[in-house]
């Protein structure tokens, strides 16, 4: 029995099925990311757990209690929204205290907890500020403080950082992760940004068309995509059809399958490498693009174009048109059944 359990959760808006029999569990203290493109149902699932949306079918269990029909205000779940949701007529302090006042906590307890929560999100000094005078990042910090101060059973974060610029976002990502670990607060984070998911999560649930495409740790999801969609959404896999893979390597795979190869697993060199347990192929460099600390080559081997990533060191740079050898480790050629892309 997991801390949170989704059992066959279905959500329909009219004829549109947004969640299609979702079932999985979340362990206490984990930070779980619901990852997927927009419209995949990840936010809807979060809102079903929060109680702001009601499920069409199925049940949701939190800490052994069936909360499927419990109103949002009685679930003891904290939530940070995508848009800035602070109450404009209240100061930061009043916003943070709001939930405790709803619980009718004693005044001194409210004061202490509010102070603590504001310190935790590093907003000390802004207690008396109104939301309108805060930056987007500060507003989301205040919203975070407001949602953790009531000591909820779960913290839900619905793309809270999407409107915040990149640098502040990094800082807030680690702040959220730290809070999750310091408080042992089970947290569910919705995002469409795979990097964000990789950095923050214990577990990633990859969503596609209202179903879970793949679940696992960031490393598992990154290194072992189970479907064409997973491979195309995460990392920048080279995806080859069985036919293309055959032309490239001469080996055959089941015709219904595709082969996914991560660009950084492919070796590139001027000399023919030894190539044990690997395909070694002659190739020609078509172009190269520096991407920060990675240099990406587009190479063509046996008429098939591949992306190859190498660390951007000053030596071993190949010009466009250069003849090179590429080395594809056999274990890095992941064979994925095509049909996994489920009925859309």
């Amino acid at each position, binding site marked *: 029995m997991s801390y949170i359990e989704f059992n066959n959760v279905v959500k329909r808006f009219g004829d549109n099925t947004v969640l299609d029999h979702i079932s999985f569990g979340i362990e206490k203290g984990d930070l779980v990311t619901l990852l997927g493109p927009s419209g995949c149902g990840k936010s809807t699932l979060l809102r079903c757990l929060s109680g702001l949306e009601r499920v069409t079918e199925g049940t949701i269990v939190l800490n052994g209690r069936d909360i499927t029909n419990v109103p949002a*205000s*009685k679930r003891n*779940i904290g939530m940070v929204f995508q848009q800035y949701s602070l109450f404009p007529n209240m100061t930061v302090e009043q916003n943070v205290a709001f*939930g405790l006042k709803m619980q009718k906590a004693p005044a001194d307890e409210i004061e202490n907890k509010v102070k603590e929560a504001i310190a935790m999100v590093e907003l000390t000094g802004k207690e008396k500020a109104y939301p309108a005078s805060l930056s987007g990042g500060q507003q989301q910090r205040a919203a975070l403080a407001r949602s953790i101060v009531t000591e909820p059973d779960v913290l839900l974060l619905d793309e809270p950082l999407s409107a915040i610029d990149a640098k502040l976002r990094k800082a807030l990502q680690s702040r959220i992760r730290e809070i999750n670990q310091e408080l042992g607060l089970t947290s569910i984070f919705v995002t469409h940004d795979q990097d964000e998911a990789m950095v923050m999560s214990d577990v990633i649930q990859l969503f596609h068309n209202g179903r879970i495409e793949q679940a696992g740790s960031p490393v598992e999801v990154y290194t072992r995509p189970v479907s064409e969609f997973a491979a195309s959404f995460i990392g920048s896999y080279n995806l080859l059809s069985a036919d293309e893979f055959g032309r490239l390597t001469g080996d055959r795979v089941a015709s219904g399958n595709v082969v996914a190869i991560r660009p950084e697993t492919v070796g590139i060199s001027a000399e023919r490498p030894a190539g044990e347990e690997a395909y070694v192929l002659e190739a020609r460099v078509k172009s190269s693009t520096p991407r920060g600390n990675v240099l990406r080559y587009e190479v063509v081997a046996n008429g098939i174009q591949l992306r190859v990533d190498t660390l951007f060191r000053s030596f071993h740079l190949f010009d466009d048109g250069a003849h090179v050898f590429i080395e594809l480790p056999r274990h890095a050629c992941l064979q994925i059944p095509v049909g996994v892309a489920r009925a859309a």
Partner: protein
Amino acid sequence: MSAKTKAAAPGQKTPLAAKIFLALVALYLLIPFATTLIYSLFIEWTDVLPSGFTLRNYAELFGNMTFWASIGRTLVLCLVSVVITIALLLLAMYVVVAVNRRLGRFMQFVCMIPYALQGVILSIGIISLYTGTGTVLSNRMMMLFGAYTILVLPYIYQGIRNALNAIDAQMLIQAAEMLGCGRFRAYVQVVLPNILSGILVSSLLAESIVFGDFVLANNIAGTNYQNIQVFLQANMARSSGLSSAIVVVIFLVVGAVTAAVLKLQQSSARKA
């Protein structure tokens, strides 16, 4: 209105033709009231210039209890009907915002109908339906309050809707709900304080509409419950001196409300 029209830059000179034309239009618009104002302050005006400055029209007016009674009735009508409309709409909008969004279209439709009805149709519809039914509904006051409530519906509805949209009321309610607050309580505690200033402008506008109404008051209540406009109409043939003073008073009251509306709109436009 003025905040939206940014054309010529501050330092720009006004062309002469523009000055002349605008002055003529302004003059044309001001003359009737100016004449009334002068008329109310003088005993006689049969030559180019009036003669015999006097405040006696005002003294007479302010000493007239019927005048004060009609002012009192008008204020009661203004305040009560606008407050009723605000209360009805705030309650109904709670349902739209927090329970069922789809009711919003129905509300909008219903609230815009009075635009097309205007006072004449509204008043005769109500009197022909309720007069002589012998129930509490045939009470003239009941009919009048009902009619005014409907008359100001479009204005207050738009004010409330815009204010709710401006703060994303639905989101605030959801945020409060997640903090253990019931929806209705969230609406009252979190949404209402944030939209009150937005409602103020449209309420003032509605007040000036009720204050300036003649059709509903005359058709529904007539002499049974004389408001200031009906009082003016009843006195017009009797004493033009007194009537001119009434016109000036009405204009000043409505003008003050309008000035307040403009002031509020400007300050909110500056904030935005």
